[in-house]
């Protein structure tokens, strides 16, 4: 053990390696933590750190992962591995080039990304999407902490546009090999038929189940609540996002707009729960202030319902999150202007 420790330490601080020390440093960090101490006040520091933070997010995703393996087979695990490797390579290359640490964020991105794909997605599409997402969603902005868009969503959006056929009409029925173009949302849109709520909660549908991680909604709720209790995700975002969707569709139903599905169906269909619990809550792409988070969640909710009902797409979650990501700087600046108004004395 000691030998490994010394080896990694040496490699990490070896000047001759230049940026190539970064992976060793990361390994050292994962295995042995840090021995750095504070230099001045505050003399003690909280025990929370990014690795623990990200591990919690990954644990919260496990029920969804397990369900997707159960419904669609071990293939799913392979896709996650592919996403990790391809995302990891991009991350490491950039860490070396920039001579910076490897950020753990890609571990969550690499887990989320395959979960928002249809079960039939071939592995090379996962590679393309992941590389594109990490590269254009994150690194071009200057790396973790500076990105405006959620990298997993950028990748997903890209392959939706690049391979439309593959990603919007071939859905696998859970626990079988049947491929259909019907999902609860599309069935509602074309025929106005609602599915059984319990089936939607558990995900064992007779028609296309949607993306891999979306099907087992009970698990998503569990994972999402787990994150909110741990305060790893801010409860305001999912609460107001889902609340807005429910309220908006309820009101629309009162006025008899039948293109908009009833609230419970909105909440239990498509990627809404998954998106609200795991993607809209991504802290980096959320507004800075709590009021800003609420505003942006409300905007997402309204957009989701509108896109679902009135656009060519059946699903609106991904688009509304990405659109709102782009609006967040504006939302932030409005909130900040209010918060830091120059008060007249």
């Amino acid at each position: 053990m000691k030998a490994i420790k010394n080896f990694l330490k040496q490699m990490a601080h070896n000047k001759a390696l230049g940026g190539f020390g970064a992976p060793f440093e990361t390994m050292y960090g994962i295995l042995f933590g840090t021995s750095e101490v504070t230099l001045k006040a505050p003399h003690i520091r909280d025990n929370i750190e990014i690795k623990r933070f990200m591990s919690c997010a990954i644990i919260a995703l496990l029920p969804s992962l397990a369900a997707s393996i159960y419904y669609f087979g071990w293939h799913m695990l392979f896709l996650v591995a592919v996403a990790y490797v391809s995302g990891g390579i991009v991350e490491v290359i950039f860490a070396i080039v920039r001579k910076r640490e490897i950020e753990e964020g890609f571990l969550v991105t690499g887990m989320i990304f395959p979960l928002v794909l249809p079960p039939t997605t071939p592995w090379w599409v996962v590679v393309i999407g992941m590389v594109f997402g990490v590269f254009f969603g994150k690194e071009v902005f200057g790396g973790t902490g500076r990105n405006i868009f959620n990298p997993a969503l950028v990748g997903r959006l890209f392959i939706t546009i690049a391979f439309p056929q593959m990603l919007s009409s071939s859905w696998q029925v859970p626990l079988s090999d049947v491929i259909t173009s019907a999902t609860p949302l599309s069935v509602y849109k074309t025929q106005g038929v609602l599915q059984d709520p319990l089936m939607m909660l558990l995900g064992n549908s007779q028609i296309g189940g949607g993306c891999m991680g979306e099907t087992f909604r009970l698990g998503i709720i569990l994972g999402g609540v787990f994150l909110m209790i741990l305060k790893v995700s801010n409860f305001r975002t999912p609460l107001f996002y889902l609340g807005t969707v429910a309220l908006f569709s309820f009101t629309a139903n009162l006025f008899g707009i039948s293109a908009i599905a009833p609230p419970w169906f909105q909440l239990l269909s498509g990627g809404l729960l998954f998106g609200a619990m795991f993607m809209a809550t991504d802290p980096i792409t959320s507004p800075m202030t709590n009021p800003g988070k609420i505003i942006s969640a409300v905007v997402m909710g309204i957009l989701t319902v509108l896109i679902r009902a009135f656009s060519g797409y059946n699903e609106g979650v991904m688009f509304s999150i990405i659109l709102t990501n782009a609006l967040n700087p504006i939302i932030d600046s409005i909130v900040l202007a209010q918060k830091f108004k120059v008060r007249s004395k």
Partner: protein
Amino acid sequence: MCLSKTKFRGGYAFRRFKGNPGIQVVQHPIPAKGLFLFKKKDGKCLVKIGQEIEMGQGLAEGKVSRLYSSLKGRVSEIKFAKINCEEFYCFYIESDKRGSENYRINRAKDLSSSAIEECLEAAHLMKISRMKSFLAQADSVGSVILHHGEADVFCLKLESLISHIPKETLDRGAKIMESLFPNARLYLAVDKRKIRVLRLSGQDTSAYILKGLSAKYPQAMDAPLAASVLGVKLNDINTALDQGIFIITLQDMAAMVQAVETGQYPLNRMIALAGPAMDNPCHALVRIGTPLSDIIDIKEGVRYIENSLLSGNQIDPAHFSVSLQTECIIAVPEGPESEFLSFARPGLVKDSIVPVFMASFLPVSKQAETNIHGEHRACLNCGYCSDVCPAGILPQMLHRYIERGMITENLVHYRIYDCIECGLCSYVCPSKIDLAFILSKGKSLLKEEALAPEKILNQGAEKQK
């Protein structure tokens, strides 16, 4: 005594840390060799080596304050030492180990404000809470807040302190305050968990309006105190002095009452000895000027800190003695060295703002140590720092501006001068960014660029016109 509980925004409740002192009080003997420190910068030495000195005699003098000896004896050595980048005089006094029988008595003649002032001046107590500046504008002082905060990780306990303060001290303190600041309302603010202790002690009195402070650090710093007790906002531009709020701790008030009534200098001070690396955490009554090595065994691999783990200074064990400012001496282990798979451990003794460790769910004592517990990463925008910030500003945003070299009016607009340097933001950051330090660096850069607060505010006011 009517009671109201108060609130301030942000803050953090440090609960159950290993090494908290019990309430028993140990009396320490008068030291054989005392140590007194005084800033060398614009300070003047008043004694020579070998000189015999009396209790209460001046050792050094600066523009605003004076150092006096709380020991009778002989000056054996005068040295210089550098502590936290500042030069200090060190006076070593060999004491005759005698008690307090030969004080010079100079009690106040009566309770008129001039007599009290004279007495405090003679007792060198004017520097307590910047008394002098407040007395210069005594009529505009509208409130006096007497307080005892107990929300730091380790701190002096009210139980111990109050058991060693003579009966009716608070009452008599109130009379003194009324005489010094005729227009002031008096407030007594203690942690809301300690109201009962105050009541049981028999010290409570109707002379004060009693306030229970919400049990979060930094309840006892000026700005949160003023905000929670009076609803007044303080910052670097608008200080307690500007607002006419005189803030004083319980122990300082007791010293003042003692000086006025008996003419005795405050010779002893109650301090808490705390921290996981302290052998016997307790309270101690020690003579001012007692060197650290007389109070505790100094160990290797331990960091000693004065008063607060969050905002206090590290102690140089060779050059430290108990002074009028000391309330608590904290010993925490340096390190520890890295732990195998530390991020994946259950964390039975780990404190955190978020309940991700077992310690949040179990009734266990948590460990304080100087390891930073994680690697430096980019800001995640998790918002923990702005959630705990008692000033209600956004440290993560200000940090971003400062790190990118954008030292502009924007920083002032986003109220960087509201930061009270409590250190909580640095404490909670999962990316281990030292926000409090970066913000204070930002403030000094701003001042260098002559973007001092007054100037910018004036500019802003002009623009609005």
